């Protein structure tokens, strides 16, 4: 009787039965998974303890070291690794290298899955995402293999610490400046040593574009949290005009007033309306690749703004004789003319590594050994450690333009920007508002209101 009932039961009942069975199976599977988890963490702790007890610098050791870069950086790093393993034959270091795309995603996935490498190259702007996990990084201050005296205390404090703990070593320092196409400047009779304000940029740009409709004095992409209109134009203008960053990290509010914001957005709008800047849609096709912009290659573009570590690619694209650098634009009548500075990248060691001592030793060697410095060169920008910097400087291995940018940056460096200002979600909101202003969808006043509203709302959720 029962059999027939089920067979003849209306379809929904059969459906429910099927779903119940599959869900039960799934839960059973998930349950198996969870119970397997608990022993996992236990064994991880015991093996770590056992490992550090048994660790000596002579036992055979394999380390995993992850970094991103281009071919040149890969080659230099691999050579440095080779040198280290010559000096320490018991150590094998496996490089896990790739391009920038997907690096952070992969690293985060590895951290969650507890499979991260022993040594990790990081971008300091990722700290907020990693803040809750800061325990997985070795405290550099407490490790006796690491010599922190090679770096300036302020850099360590500002860019290498989470919650007061130094968790990474700065690998290189980036200054900030404009990349100039000299041929363009010559063509339009613009002196190379012009100190730009946003206002003079707009005026001069207007003149240049009216004379040659294909030429633009300035070009920049819409960008992301690592660069573009939001931080390099609007943010930079506000910082220079008002003297402080628009985000107040202490109490999670916005420092800039409505008037100041309107002024900033008006400047942004004028920058594009005047023809000083290449139309945003077109320039954005070269996000992160502005050196591939045909206008750059054909001297139809005057300059762009970028970090000093990118000098090589801009210069290489148009040739040394066509290239020059300069200070980034300031706001006219502004409160300061400080220039952005940041570490190009930082190096952290996983505290869950089975070979923390050896990893730390390698990290220290890589950053402070003169041999290593010579091998690595400026592949990670100008080295932050004093030892490495001096070695390269004395050997004349620092590019003169990179040196020039670092010089004027170091003469008047800006404080570190609040990390929340660089948060990806917030950067995207700012970027979108700037785009709307540039494409004429928002007036500067409306944009200021939207900024105050949307950005504050997002900041509230992030706290």
């Amino acid at each position, binding site marked *: 009787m029962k059999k027939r009932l089920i067979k003849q039961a209306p379809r929904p009942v059969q459906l429910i039965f099927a779903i119940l069975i599959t869900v039960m199976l*799934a839960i059973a*599977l998930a349950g198996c998974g969870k119970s397997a988890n608990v022993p996992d963490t236990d064994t991880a702790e015991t093996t770590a303890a056992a490992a550090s007890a048994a660790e000596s610098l002579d036992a055979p050791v394999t380390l995993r070291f992850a970094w991103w870069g281009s071919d040149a950086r890969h080659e230099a790093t691999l050579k440095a690794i080779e040198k280290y393993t010559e000096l320490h034959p018991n150590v094998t270091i496996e490089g896990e290298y790739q391009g920038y795309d997907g690096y952070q995603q992969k690293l*985060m996935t590895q951290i969650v899955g507890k499979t991260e490498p022993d040594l990790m190259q990081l971008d300091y702007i990722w700290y907020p995402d990693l803040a809750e996990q800061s325990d997985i990084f070795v405290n550099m201050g407490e490790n006796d293999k690491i010599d922190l005296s090679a770096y300036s205390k302020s850099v360590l404090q500002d860019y290498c610490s989470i919650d007061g703990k130094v968790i990474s070593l700065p690998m290189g320092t980036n200054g900030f400046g404009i990349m100039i196409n000299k041929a363009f400047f010559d063509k339009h009779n613009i002196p190379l040593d012009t100190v730009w304000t946003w206002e003079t940029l707009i005026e001069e740009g207007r003149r240049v574009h009216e004379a040659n409709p294909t030429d633009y004095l300035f070009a920049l992409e*819409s960008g992301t949290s690592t660069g573009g209109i939001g931080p390099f134009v609007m943010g930079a203008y506000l910082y220079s005009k008002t003297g402080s960053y628009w985000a107040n990290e202490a109490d999670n509010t916005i420092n800039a007033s409505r008037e100041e914001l309107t002024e900033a957005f008006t400047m942004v709008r004028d920058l594009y309306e005047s023809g000083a800047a290449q139309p945003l*849609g*077109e320039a*954005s096709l070269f996000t992160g690749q502005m050196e591939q912009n*045909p206008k750059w290659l054909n001297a139809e573009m005057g300059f762009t703004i970028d970090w000093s570590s990118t000098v090589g690619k801009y210069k290489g694209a148009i040739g040394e004789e066509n290239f020059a650098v300069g200070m980034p634009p300031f706001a006219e009548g502004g409160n300061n003319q400080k220039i952005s500075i940041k570490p190009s990248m930082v190096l952290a060691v996983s505290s869950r590594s089975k070979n923390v001592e050896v990893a730390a030793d390698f990290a220290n060697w890589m950053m402070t050994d003169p041999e290593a410095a010579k091998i690595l060169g400026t592949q990670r920008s100008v080295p932050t450690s004093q030892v490495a910097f001096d070695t390269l400087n004395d050997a004349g291995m620092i590019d003169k333009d990179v040196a020039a940018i670092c010089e004027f940056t170091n003469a008047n460096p800006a404080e570190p920007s609040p990390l929340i200002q660089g948060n990806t979600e917030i950067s*995207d909101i700012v970027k979108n508002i700037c*785009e709307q202003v540039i494409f004429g969808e928002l007036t500067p006043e409306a944009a200021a209101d939207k900024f105050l509203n949307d950005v504050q709302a997002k900041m509230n959720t992030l706290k």
Partner: protein
Amino acid sequence: MKIKKGKKSRRENVGYLYILPWIFGFLVFQLYPLVSSLYYSFTDFSITNIPVFIGLKNYIDMFTKDPLFYKSLMNTLKYVLMSVPLKIITALLVAVILNQKIKGINFYRTIYYIPSIFGGSVAIAILWRFLFMDSGLVNRCLAIFKIPGVQWLSNPKVALFTLSLLSVWQFGSSMVLFLAALKQVPEDLYEAARIDGGSWIRIFFSITIPMITPVLFFNILMQLVNAFQDFTGAFVITNGGPLNSTYLFALKLYDEAFSYYKMGYASALSWVLFIMIIAFTAVFFKFSDTLTYYEDGGDY
């Protein structure tokens, strides 16, 4: 009577045997992650911390506090409606033309398939930009004919269309399926029609199309499902711009999951996408039931 019953239940069990690999794979590699993601969609989960249950908040926020949610949905719908019909029609026409036994047909087929081999190759961004930037090849060709250039990728009103061209360019896989289907149409049907004096248009619509309806249906379904999830072009060429005009839903999902690390919200978004696709295809299934011809008698 009894023998028949026995055979039937044995045959039933054999059916299960054949689909066993799928059942296993489904439970472990699909259902389990699926149920996990459903659970995550009701949590606040930033990948580095433990998921915190927050009920329906993700879904509510999606519809009330996220203007880009609607924008990306609209963009995706437009993209699907632009790219899928164009792609299917092109693939079918080219397949019909390539179904002839003329010399060099193998070469031609390969040529039309190669764009699909590109996939999401790293070169795609460079190629599409080279073709469609303001000073790109297409505009220069137009200039030869004195046609004013179009801002293919830099104008918010045009960029989405240019992206759908990328999808259409890669019609190769649909074409291959159509070719395979065309091959299965029995020659004698064509013979009979020609004897009866039918024109090629008549033959096309009365014989070819009906005979390949299962594959036609399949192709349209697959292209729909893929188009909803299309990601590569928007990611590598325009990055959602300009002015978020090419911000497709898959890109939004990627941003939430892997740029903002809001896995809970991303899971919720993906469930919404999932349900949308199911709804779309359910309608399509119903609609096509009446139109498809199955050789096995439709006994399903």
